Structure formats: C-alpha cells, structure tokens
C-alpha cells in the first residue's frame, strides 16, 4: 500500500481538469451543473468522485468525454488536459478518436446502457471497428477474450445473445468489457454499482480493481456512497453543488476530513464496524438548487462551523498540506471532536 502511494508521486498526470464549467439553460434559469471543478488523475491511479445526487458528478465525467447533452447543456469554460492535449480544443473528429480508445466510460444503468436490438458480440466489436485497432477477422476473437476476462461464463454463447437475457451484473461486466476493448488509458465509471445488489456490487468492484491493476488503467469511479470506494480509491474528490470541495488521498480524507460537508457525510451514515449509535448525526437542511445557489459558500446554510465570511466569499479549493485540498475557510481548525461534541 505504502509502495503504491509512493509510486503515485512520481507518475505523470494523465488527466488535468482546471476550472471546468458546464451549464444548462433551463426554464428556471442557468443550472450550474459543473461550476469550476478542478482535479487531477495520475496514470494508473484510481480516483473517486463522491457527492450527493445532482451535485454534478455525471456532468463532470460527460464534460471530459465532451458528451454533455446538447443543446441545453454546454461547456462554458475551463480546460481539460489529457496527456497534454486540451480536449476542449479538439475537433469533433479528433475527440471521437479519443472516446472509447483513450478514455472509456461505464454508465450507471446497466439495464438501459446496452442497445436492446444488437447482440452483445456486435456491441463489443463495433468499438474495435470504430477505432480500427484490429484487422477484419479478429474482432470476434478479441470479443471472446474480453468476455472471458470479465468473467462471463459460457462466453461463446453469450456473444450472440441479446442484452435483455442478461442480469444487471452480467450487463455491467459487458460494459466493462466494452470499456476495456481498446486498452484505454482512463476509464470513467459513473456509479457502476449503484443499481446492483450488495453481493454483486462487491463482485464488480473487485473485478474492476483487478483489471485496472492488470492493465495499468487509470480509473475515476463516481459514486454517492463514501463507503463503496473506501476500499478501492487512491484518491477521493468530494463534490458539493457543482464544485470539488475537498480532495485528498483516500486514507487521509476518511481519517482526517477537512471540510464540514465531508465530515457530516462520514458521520451521518451508520457504520457496521462501529458500535451502534443511539441517534444518527444528519446534515440538516437540503442541498441547494443549482440554479439558485446561496451567496458565498454553497454549504454555508447547512454548515455547523459557519462563520460570517462563509456567507460572503466563496472559499477557494486550497492546499492545506500533504496533497490535501479543501474549500473551507476554517479547514485547518476543523476537528472531528468538535462535531461529535456539538
């Protein structure tokens, strides 16, 4: 583990997102789905993007793929550097060549993410064909190999099967196979296990970890559950209302959270490894509407540590040491004890 951590420091940055802004034009006004998000992913690293529903996780990933739904949504600012190239400056054709080949994506809903009228085999091979990675006759062989890789029994028969005959877990394996097919550098996994059962969830996550290690693929796992990624992530970025509010190494963030929101999140869930509490500590209030953000820090209305400044100024994401970044004015003075005593 330690070795891995050390290694990361020397590895090059694969993806660098700077001040990304993606907005939606809706009847209520402008929805700032992604509102100045910055983070890095290093080669071979597994990063986690964590946050509540609607905070902009999916849109961040889609922005990286440049697949934000048009015409309502558009990327209005920022930079996305992937292997040194700014993805936002590429032509549509260049971007198409990157999608699937360099960066792959896995979606939340395994039930609807596969085309119901095409066979599994076809859906795998078409990616290969699109990127012309293989000669004419090998795609089937490669597809078969991929299916075996993701642990699908009876792979030969499954190739000519249709998605509706597979269970959710199986489909998610297919999605992983498709994502792996062109040996990408980075896989964006948008809540890959949320729709699955606990026991299946564990299967899929173990599989993903295993494969990413085997092929040295960097991964960004998006989730709303801090528990899910604790075991797998090297680095965790916490999002709240369109912004990354804290990012740090996995151990660091769980043991020494430096943002009241992360702190609250960790405390509000009951934990199996700790004695049962008489009462849970919820974060009071509701997440804000993205088209109508409060002044200053978006979390300030729900924050227990709020100070006057929070209501006026938006705290920047700043380095508070040892690769730990937090967007809180009082990040340094925050302590766990304070929360539990309150």
């Amino acid at each position, binding site marked *: 583990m330690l070795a891995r951590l050390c290694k990361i420091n020397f590895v090059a940055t694969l993806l660098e997102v700077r001040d990304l802004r993606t907005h939606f034009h809706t009847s209520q006004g402008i929805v700032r789905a992604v509102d100045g998000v910055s983070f890095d992913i290093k080669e071979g690293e597994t990063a986690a993007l964590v946050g509540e529903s609607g905070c902009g996780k999916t849109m961040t990933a889609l922005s990286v793929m440049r697949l934000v739904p048009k015409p309502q949504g558009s990327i209005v600012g920022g930079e996305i550097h992937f292997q040194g190239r700014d993805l936002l400056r590429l032509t549509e054709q260049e971007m198409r060549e990157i999608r*699937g*080949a360099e960066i792959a*994506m896995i*979606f939340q809903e395994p039930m609807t993410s596969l085309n119901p*009228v095409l066979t599994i085999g076809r859906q795998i091979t*078409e990616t290969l064909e699109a990127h012309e990675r293989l000669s004419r006759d090998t795609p089937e062989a490669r597809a078969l190999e991929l299916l075996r890789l993701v642990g699908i029994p009876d792979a030969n028969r499954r190739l000519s099967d*249709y998605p*509706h005959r597979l269970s959710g877990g199986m489909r998610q394996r297919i999605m992983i196979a*498709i994502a792996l097919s062109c040996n990408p550098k980075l896989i964006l996994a948008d809540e890959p296990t949320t729709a699955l059962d606990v026991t299946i969830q564990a299967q899929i996550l173990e599989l993903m970890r295993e494969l990413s290690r085997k092929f040295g693929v960097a991964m960004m796992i998006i989730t709303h559950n801090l528990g899910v990624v604790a075991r797998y992530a090297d680095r965790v970025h916490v999002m709240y209302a369109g912004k990354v509010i804290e990012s740090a190494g996995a151990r660091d963030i769980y043991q020494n959270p430096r943002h009241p929101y992360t702190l609250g999140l960790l405390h509000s869930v009951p934990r199996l490894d700790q004695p049962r509490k008489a009462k849970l500590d919820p974060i009071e209030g509701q997440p804000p509407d993205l088209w109508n953000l409060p002044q200053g820090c978006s979390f300030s209305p729900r924050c227990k540590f709020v100070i006057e400044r929070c209501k006026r100024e938006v705290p920047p994401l700043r380095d508070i040491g040892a690769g730990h970044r937090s967007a809180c004015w009082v990040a340094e003075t925050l302590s766990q004890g304070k929360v539990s005593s309150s």
Partner: protein
Amino acid sequence: MRQYILKRVLLMIPTLLGVAVLVFFLLRVLPGDIVELKYAGTGTYAPKQAIERERAQLGLDKPLWQQFLSWIWGIVRFDFGQSMWTGRPITHEIAIRLELSVELALMATLVAVLISIPLGTLAALRQDSWVDYFVRVFSIAGLAIPSFWLGILMILVFIIYFRWLPPLTFTSFWVNPKANLMQLVWPALAVGYRYSAVATRMTRSAVLEVLREDYIRTARAKGLWEKVILVRHALKNALLPVITVIGLEFAFLVGGLVVTEQVFNLNGIGKLFVEAISQRDYTMVQSLVLLTSFVFIFVNFVVDLINAWLDPRIRYQ
C-alpha cells in the same frame, strides 16, 4: 415462435366472430329494407306481393337467428353467398375491387414511407431548427388538407391545364402496367402524402426519443461515427413504433378510402362499401366488414411479427 403464430391466428377467430355478430345485427336495425329500396328507388310503385316474393327469395322472411347461422355456416365453407342487390357471387364482386384497393394501399403506403422516414429522421436530428419546423408544417399540412379537396384540386388541374384525366377504368398491373400506374399514381400520391403525416411525426418522435436513450450515449462514448450511431443504433430501435403505425394505416387504407375513391372514381372497396350500405345489401356489407376487419387483424399480426423479428426482446418472449 411457431406456437405464438398459431396462437395469434387462432385468436383471430373470436374477434372475427364478434365482428360478424355485431355487423349482422347492426344491419338489421337499420331502417329501410333492401327489397323496398330496390323497387322504390326511382319512385315507381311495386306491388306488395312482388316485395314479399323478393323477400322470400332472399331468405329475409326467415327468423334472424336462422339467417345468421346459415350465413356463418356459409362462411365456414368459404361460401360468402351472393350480393342481394346484384345477385352475383360476393367473392366475385369483391375480387374485382380488392385488387385495386390493395394496390392503391400498397402504393400509398410506399409513398408515405418514402416521405416519412427520411423527413422524420431529419427533423429529429435537427430538432427545433427551421428544417424541423418545415417538416412539421409540411407533414401537418398533409393531415389538415382534406383528401377529397386535394383530389378535386388535382383533377381540376388535370382537366383545366392539361385537358387530361387519369384513366377511369381499372386495368390490372399485370395486363397493362402503364395504364394501371397512370390511374393509380395520383390518388396514391394524394393519399400517401396525407398518411405520411402520421408516420413522419411518429418517426420524428421515435428518433428523438431513442436519441435520448442511454445506449446512444454509450455508443457515443465508444467513439462511433455519428452515421453509425444513427443507422445502427437509433433507427433500428426507432423503426419499431413507426412500423406499427404504418401497418395500421395500411390496414385502414384497404377499404377506408371512401372519399378518395369517390373523387377519382376508383372502383374500389371503399366505394363498394358506401353503395352496399346505402342499398342495404346485407350480405355484401357483412362480407365487406368481415374482410376489412380481417385485413386489420391480419396486418396487426404481421406488424407484430415484424416487430418481433426486429426486436429480440419480443422475439424471445
């Protein structure tokens, strides 16, 4: 699958029987009687016993249930009887018209397909652009312009500007394709345009809907070409509801083109329908209703088969 087909075919029987019962008794409650109509048609007077005699001859003096049973018994043996009005065999009377009606329906459907699928897809791809607006206005105009009106305008234009009229009598395509097409192309265009409206709108909304599906996003994320995404992923799925709509329309066109047939003087099923009803030609109307219902059910069945063939989710049920 074979069992499914067999089941569907057998399920047609009760529906057709229901239609038969309904039409038989509906006709008997219509005021006016075929025999009296036959004689009173031009205001001359027919003696009572002549009317009675004719009624007996047509079997109308028997109790209703007997008439019904003998009719059904005939149909079971594929004997549809004779037209009460002309006395000729119904199969013969219908066959002459059916060829025209089916051909016209096919041609109109073809026109509708050729118009609707490209236009609908285009409109969906360019949603809310002027192309989309144009397609929608064009297709809705097809719905809004009464077909009889369009037909009359066409004929007037032919007559006034070209001193020409499509042939008035039907020639089978196999006998003289040119004469056949000359007669049917115009009504097919008028009707096809009208029916393309529904199909265009269905194509548009189906494509729009499919484009919002998750698997399209997956396809994009794979880095596929837009053209491949459209044809392989979007259209194949979007066509399912479109085929259903087109099928239903086709079923309706066989026998439903009353006004168009009238305007273009086509000797088709629709015209026969109106005449038979106004003449109270019971046996004829019954057979026609049965025929059109059968076409409707049958086309539905075929559409389901096509859908099952295209959609594995249905196929494997």
